[in-house]
């Protein structure tokens, strides 16, 4: 969880993860460069910097594809959640690899001249009015700036200080960056390398990202049972609620609600984690606290507050049990408002 911002947030899981990730990065770069030299015809060979430009460009793009697939994959199978948990480290690593790519391009293709490299980036190819002739480097540059802003604000310190709305909006711009990069490749490398594999990689990457997002957003649109009673929404029969888990209710308007059961206690909170908006209703009650499936932030059942020393708060909702059926009041209490859980078989069970 989040509170000592000075601390680098490493733990045994993240350390193991990062070792694997960096080994993968090294393996990719070494294989790419070795094959780049081994497969050129006799007498032809890349300059080392140009081989590196390609190795890092392709790797950063492939990693970005994977990052964008983690969210939907974690919806389909909670087994992918550990990737989500450490997505930030994959993101920062991807940015650094892309930075090497962009930096080498600026040095190599735009350097060694009287014209400033950054000026050259924008003026050397002036065909802004053409599609196939467009200066694709500029698209890569804008994407790299977006990736930089995201990497720089990826720490929880920024999440807490910018507020979840701005932070989320900033980090949604990864989709803008991705679109720019697809164009960067289509208008750049693919205008030169015309063999099918290049089109295949770009097409499969973009196709997978789009498809996974479509399917997962359709899946999360499924509207649950909204039959109510005097403005209260029906949740489920008590016996249908699994212990320590939640059912997610989506009111016609307003945010989704997660209704948790912990033994005989039933309580409802916002489905949206204060941290990065993770789906709390897919989480679990651990030691009496609702625990987010993404990064493990916790909130107390009875007031939606993180246990001290943490200070995050989420909205709570009133619940009641009538004739063995659980209902929730879709009007949220302000975040952190105490709201006594309903007791199964307790005094506030009516009927």
């Amino acid at each position: 969880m989040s509170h000592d911002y000075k601390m680098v947030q490493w733990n045994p899981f993240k350390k193991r993860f990062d070792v694997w990730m960096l080994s993968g990065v090294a393996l990719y770069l070494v294989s790419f460069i070795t094959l780049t030299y081994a497969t050129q015809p006799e007498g032809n060979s890349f300059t080392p910097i140009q081989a590196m430009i390609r190795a890092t460009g392709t790797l950063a793009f492939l990693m970005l594809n994977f990052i964008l697939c983690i969210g939907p994959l974690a919806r389909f199978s909670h087994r992918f959640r550990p990737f989500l948990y450490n997505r930030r480290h994959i993101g920062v690593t991807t940015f650094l690899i892309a930075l090497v790519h962009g930096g080498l391009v600026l040095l190599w293709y735009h350097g060694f001249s009287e014209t400033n490299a950054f000026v050259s980036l924008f003026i050397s190819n002036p065909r802004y009015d053409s599609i196939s002739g467009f200066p694709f480097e500029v698209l890569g540059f804008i994407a790299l700036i977006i990736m930089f802003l995201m990497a720089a604000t990826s720490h929880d310190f920024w999440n807490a200080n910018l507020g979840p709305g701005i932070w989320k909006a900033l980090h949604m711009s990864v989709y803008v960056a991705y679109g720019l990069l697809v164009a960067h490749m289509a208008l750049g490398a693919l205008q030169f390398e015309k063999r099918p594999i290049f089109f295949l990689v770009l097409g499969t990457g973009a196709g997978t990202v789009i498809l996974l997002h479509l399917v997962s957003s359709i899946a999360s649109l499924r509207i649950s049972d909204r039959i109510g009673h005097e403005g209260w929404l029906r949740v489920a029969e008590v016996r249908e609620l699994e212990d320590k888990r939640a059912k997610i209710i989506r009111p016609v308007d307003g945010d989704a609600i997660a209704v948790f059961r912990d033994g005989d206690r039933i309580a409802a909170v916002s489905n949206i984690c204060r941290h990065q908006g993770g789906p709390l209703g897919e989480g679990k009650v651990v030691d009496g606290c609702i625990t987010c499936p993404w990064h493990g932030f916790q909130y107390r059942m009875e007031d939606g507050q993180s246990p001290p020393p943490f200070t995050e708060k989420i909205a709570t909702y009133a619940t009641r049990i009538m004739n063995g059926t659980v209902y929730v009041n879709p009007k949220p209490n302000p975040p952190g408002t105490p709201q006594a859980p309903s007791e199964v078989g307790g005094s506030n069970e009516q009927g």
Partner: protein
Amino acid sequence: MSKDDFFIGWAETPEVDRRFMLGAGLSIITGTTAVGIGISARQRPVGSGTWNMGEIREWRGIATSEPYGMIRTLDLDGTERTALLACQGKCGVSAKIGALAGKPVVVKGSLIHRGRHAMIAVVDGLDWIREDPDGSIDGLAFPQPEPIMDVSLNGEIMDSKCWFGAMRPARGKIHKSCASLCIRGGLPPAFYVRDMKDQTALMIMTSGGYGHNKDLLPFVAESVSITGQLQRFGDLFLLDAPVSAITRL
């Protein structure tokens, strides 16, 4: 938590998650590397030029600054050959030859070459060229360009230095900005054509006998058609055509 498999990053990782992550991690790393191998193995041939940057030596011959900085020398292979001249970076040196044009000179630099195409990247500083008191003009003087025929050709304009070996790859859209920067800096532009039988030819581009400059920039590294005069200039071919005779395909 031990028997339950709800993953919490900061807690101990459940056994199922460890096993899944091991499998998934290995698959992702293998898959990504396989894609990388597929891409790297299918890249176009990048050309055979080389630049022996470290091998700096002196070259004797006759210098000229028109249409571009060049030297005619016996030092390449014992016969009369022309080597283009360039600075270490993306610039030509023709303006720096000045009064030494037409005179026997010694230039200091390293060789960039691709097949018979040669360029000397001269060393930084002022002492890259000096008059050669022992040299003579006999046999090495630059000839007048001889017209061969009028031609209309399709091909690509690129900068000679990169294509001769300073960069690999050195053509096409990916290299366009660099080629523009080189030509902007005064490096000799070259026209590269490839016919149906995959035969290639390279001509140095001039306009009315003089060097091109920034006027060429809109056409660099694209498919263009040029109508002009093919000329022989010693062991080089020139394509003499004004910018107005160039059209994008």
